[in-house]
């Protein structure tokens, strides 16, 4: 009985702390019949600690399609070209054509056809497949170059993004890419992506 009473108290603490029907899920707290330990037995706030602003800032690196998360900075094709030659071409090729398993980055073929499902020989690139421009900044900053991820400054990432977008014929070579202009870049494949319509059951999709 003691366990049950503690469980109820824990449940009350939970409901108060979360303060809203949208987060308080009553079914989570009644699933612990038959004497098993339940979530309600550990009052909220007793395990873990509040994160500091500095901890969050150090790791909060994601960028979304609205541009949320983009840092201050700017980049251009010409500055990006030098950087690409110095740090990227060793794997991706001087013209972003790809080498061995290192992906091709530049190219618009098959242009407006998007026949990737039908033709296994087509090679996906930033220009013909990537649906969001902001993904470029997010990915290059978090993971590239492979041997030294996290080593590029914000301006260096913007420069590389400007270079890759211009080489793919998506922006002009004299365009400046920054917090404001990058999310506004419309990628050629943007409208090709559809949500999952598989449901299980008898249909094969």
């Amino acid at each position, binding site marked *: 009985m003691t366990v049950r009473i503690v469980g109820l108290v824990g449940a009350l603490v939970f409901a108060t702390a979360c303060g809203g029907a949208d987060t308080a899920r009553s079914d989570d707290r009644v699933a612990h019949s038959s004497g098993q330990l339940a979530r309600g037995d550990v009052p909220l706030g007793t395990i873990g600690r509040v994160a500091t602003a500095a901890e969050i800032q150090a790791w909060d690196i994601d960028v979304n399609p609205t541009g949320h998360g983009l840092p201050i900075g700017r980049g251009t094709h010409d500055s990006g070209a030098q950087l690409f030659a110095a740090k990227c071409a*060793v794997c991706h090729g001087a013209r972003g054509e790809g080498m061995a398993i290192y992906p091709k980055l530049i190219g618009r073929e098959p242009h407006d056809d998007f026949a990737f499902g039908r033709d296994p020989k087509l090679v996906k690139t930033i220009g013909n497949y990537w649906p969001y421009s902001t993904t470029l900044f997010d990915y290059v900053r978090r993971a590239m170059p492979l041997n030294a991820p996290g080593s590029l400054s914000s301006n260096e990432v913007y420069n590389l993004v400007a270079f890759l977008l211009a080489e793919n014929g998506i922006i002009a070579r004299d365009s400046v890419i920054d917090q404001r202009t990058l999310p506004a870049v419309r990628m050629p494949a943007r409208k090709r992506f559809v949500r999952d319509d598989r449901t299980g059951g008898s249909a094969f999709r």
Partner: protein
Amino acid sequence: MSESISRRALLAGVAVAAGGVVLDQLPLSAQNAQPAQASVPPDPSLVPGGPTTPVSARSPFESAVRTPAGVITGPAYSPIHQLTGTITPSDLMFERHHAGVAVIDPAKYKLLVHGLVDRPMVFTLDDLRRFPSVSRVHFLECSGNGRNGYRDPKPELTAQLVDGLTSNGEWTGVPLATLLREVGVKRGATWFLGEGGDASKLSRSIPIEKAWDDALVAYAFNGEPLRPANGYPARLFLPGFEANTSIKWLRRIKLIDQPNMSRDETAKYTDPLPDGTARQFSFVMDAKSIITQPSYPARVAPGWIEISGLAWSGRGKIARVEVSTDGGAHWTDAALQDPVLSRAHTRFRFPWRWNGKPAVIMSRATDETGYVQPTLEVFQATRGRGTDFHFNHIRAWTLRGDGTVVYGARA
């Protein structure tokens, strides 16, 4: 096999110029491990055996290994053609890394949960282990599993190279829902971002319903702490979802109001279709099965053979597995090994007397939603020959008159 960067290639290409930063952190022991050669007495019943050891090694007479070794961005396939039952040994679990196996000190590990929350919080590994835990048996499968057999179907493919990017075992951890209650999720949080602490900092956006449903922050597999290649000290585990979403070396969960459109949910892990679209956020692994015994390079003799294999579905339990020994013209129910668990490998068995004439053997899984594994022809017509993930069509093996077994339905 298509996407892999070998240590040699990386040494030659990038790391030498930059000082080998990544390579220096790679644990090499697993790749170089060789079973010790035991001296075999003429009659083991006449001499005392060896002493106890801290950790047991596999018998030196056994040779099951993952392949390929030495890859830091690419897969290593589990030898499913040499395994029995349903549980994958931890050291033979498949691997797929995006920037090598991270080395993380458990004393310094922390998981940050923030974003649209009332209280952003940090949990240490000890913290995670203090929460009420759960253990569940589930498969974990890369959605690229099956690409070799679909895009480049050679007769000499092993079951390992066809479907070895799936593994199954007992996961232990804390429900993600428990952690979300600790931080208090704000109204408007509809997705969460999971991010790894490895050099790829791999990130995926997941609908928040999965967090409330059955997502785990797992810290153990098959009764012991996760192995480094399996995400030590803690990883996300999303039952039934493509493995890329079960972020290894998990360091951050961020509650968000829209998907982030990360590289691995746009440029990769999307499914081009014949109608000129690409399916996105195709998380659930559809029902499939494969005969693992007999399979290439086995050689069989006429007489009784146990056809055996694995079936699984990301949508629930396997309801039925049928086997055909005549290329799909006739199908007969196989026996399912109890217990049949939801979203877990299910072993099927089918005793069959082979008459020595060429034959094509196949398996076909049905899950509890009524979903039936499609034929290769239906799959090709629906998904296209260029589609890139979720290859769950019926697999075939051909028994030739000389007893050799090769991949595919071959006349």
